[in-house]
């Protein structure tokens, strides 16, 4: 839902970032307002997953230029856990397994960390069980998964449902979902997308990082951004995703090549 007067939640300006010695993001600009659903599309290696990791504060990525503000405050100076507590959520492409740590306990500690930031009281084991059982409905997840270790032995689909369950519990204002559709069969995709749709409202925003149109058949984006070589090359409405689906990414390559050629010309030639 696009409302020009809605508050800006996330503002990314000329963001550049590298991993080890490799520059990946080369000037990303993006403004996300409350109520909006954005899709960021692009080939493997275009930088879209890096963008999600940088926003969440992964220590392997170094920001070299630009800024990111979240509700007006500098997001980049915060530790990953602080970002999560104030309402930035990253749904992982490959959620890691954490043997020995109970999923239920993990969810409770995470939820309470967020609630403390929101000024809500801490939930004890019983109150939390009530809450989690209610939120399980969002992703139609079997309560048996609560008793297991975090993601351990979960199938790809179960891991993604566990991600959306976390999102449902943490109640983020900006949810970044990195390739949430990868590795899902049609049924699981429908359930996960249904969960995301249920959680989207006028006060929060969703950033879908995806490769394919099929996720966008289930979740309708307000904006579609096409990323290539560490930049957002083009922005449009939902029809841009369809165009991309029809024409393939080769078209993006051509556009990128033209852009780079323009940039390497000398000022005299441009004149």
């Amino acid at each position, binding site marked *: 839902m696009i409302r020009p007067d809605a508050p800006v939640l996330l503002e990314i300006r000329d963001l550049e970032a590298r991993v080890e010695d490799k520059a990946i993001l080369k000037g990303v600009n993006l403004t996300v307002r409350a109520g909006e659903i954005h899709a960021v599309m692009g080939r493997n290696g275009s930088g879209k997953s890096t963008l999600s990791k940088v926003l*969440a*504060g*992964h*220590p*392997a990525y170094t920001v070299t230029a630009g800024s990111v503000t979240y509700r007006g405050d500098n997001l980049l100076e915060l*530790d*990953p*856990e602080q*970002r*999560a*507590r104030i309402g930035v*959520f*990253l749904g*992982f492409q490959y*959620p*890691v397994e*954490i*043997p*020995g*740590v*109970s999923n239920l*306990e*993990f969810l409770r*500690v*995470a939820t309470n*960390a*967020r609630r403390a*930031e929101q000024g809500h009281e801490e939930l004890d084991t019983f109150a939390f069980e009530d809450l989690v059982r209610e939120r399980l409905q969002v992703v139609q997840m079997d309560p048996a998964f609560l008793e297991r*270790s975090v993601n351990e032995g979960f199938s790809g689909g179960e891991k993604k449902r566990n991600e959306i369950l*976390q999102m449902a519990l*943490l109640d983020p204002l900006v949810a970044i979902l990195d390739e949430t559709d990868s590795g899902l069969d049609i049924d699981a995709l429908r359930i996960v997308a249904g969960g995301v749709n249920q959680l989207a409202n006028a006060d929060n925003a969703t950033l879908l990082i995806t490769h394919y149109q099929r996720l966008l058949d289930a979740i309708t984006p307000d904006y579609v951004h096409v990323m290539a070589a560490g930049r957002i090359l083009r922005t449009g409405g939902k029809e841009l995703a369809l165009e991309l689906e029809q024409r393939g990414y080769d078209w993006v390559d051509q556009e990128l090549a033209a852009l780079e050629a323009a940039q390497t010309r000398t000022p005299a030639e441009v004149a």
Partner: protein
Amino acid sequence: MSSPQAVGDLVSQPYKYGFVTDIETEKIAKGLSEDVVRLISSKKEEPAFLLEFRLRAYRQWLQMREPDWAALGYPPIDYQDVIYYAAPKQQAKKASLDEVDPKLLETFDKLGIPLSEQKRLSNVAVDAVFDSVSIATTYKEKLAEHGVIFCSISEAVKEHPELIERYLGTVVPSNDNYFAALNSAVFSDGSFVFIPKGVECPMELSTYFRINSGDTGQFERTLIVAEEGASVSYLEGCTAPMFDTNQLHAAVVELVALDDAAIKYSTVQNWYAGDEHGVGGIYNFVTKRGQCRGDRSKISWTQVETGSAITWKYPSCVLQGADSVGEFYSVALTNNRQQADTGTKMIHVGPRSRSTIVSKGISAGHSANSYRGLVQIGPKAVGARNYSQCDSMLIGDQAAANTYPYIRSQQPQASVEHEASTCRISEDQLFYLQSRGIGFEEAVSMMVSGFCRDVFNQLPMEFAAEADKLLALKLEGSVG
């Protein structure tokens, strides 16, 4: 908190128990000889049989060689450069705590082991050992009402010589190994527990060992006997001040369980581990063995090993009785330059004897952590069963973990299972937890306690939370 600097700051967290108590100490001259053995025995006014026991052990020790099969590296120990007896200057053990040097009481207060009537733990009886002597034992009278004997071994030698003569050295013979022989020759103090037939010990028993002197070796000896149908839960804790020299600690613990008896022995070992460059720290060479002599008897070892520069320790069970049960639950954590070679031996002799081994090794920093275990099934152990699980966790990329499981079975109708795994706390796991609002240190601690849960669940309630905290403290800043 995941930046390398923050991590560095946390590493340098001081060892909490590294202080030295300034107290007048009576020490004998450095070095070991037959005369020194006689001197120790005479200082303790021991009966002739014990002097004989010591002298025999000393002569055996002279013939033995220090073992070198463990995956441990340390410079040669000069056994003539160690003081074999040190005691705070006070007359014979005091009848009442009021007479104990307040400095000693203060020391134990600081260690979190208050001994005075008003402050002592309400459900745990404590024997406090300072350098070579026991300074106080709480709740002795209350335990005596149940027929339970809980006192220092020196006291037991005087008051119950017949029990000492009957049981001492019967589980760990004086020539069992190099360090056991050394201990048998020069042991100073330790605890004695005797639970008579049919008695369930009414409270937890605990011994707290404190090394204070810098150049002294500590050689404690503990003996626990549970008669038919008796049961007891016992816990030992240990700390030492920080010195930049290495200190020798060679203890022997013997457990005897008769028919239907049960002994649960838990250890939280936190000797000074040396600094981050491996300077100083305790050399911990310990022989612990329990004998399930009776049918249906049970001995359970739980250890949380976090301290010492070197740990060489294999708490074992000899399962003689039919249907006897042996258990070993271990968490061994090494950080910085620590080295640990620890595990267990389960010797199945009796039919249908069962044993369970759960070992969790955590290696951080530049440390090395080895599990070494033997499961032996004798020809008469029809239907014996063993289950072993050895898991290692690596933190950082400079630490080492090894597993050396040995299985010897002479009994075709026995079942032995061994499972092993190695894992690493990865940056991605930490980031995952952090990205859900869980702080860096809490994330590490969640993962480590999750890894250790099977073992912590075995600790007496009062100490499980303590162990969890201790591990978190030891690991602070080791990840990054």
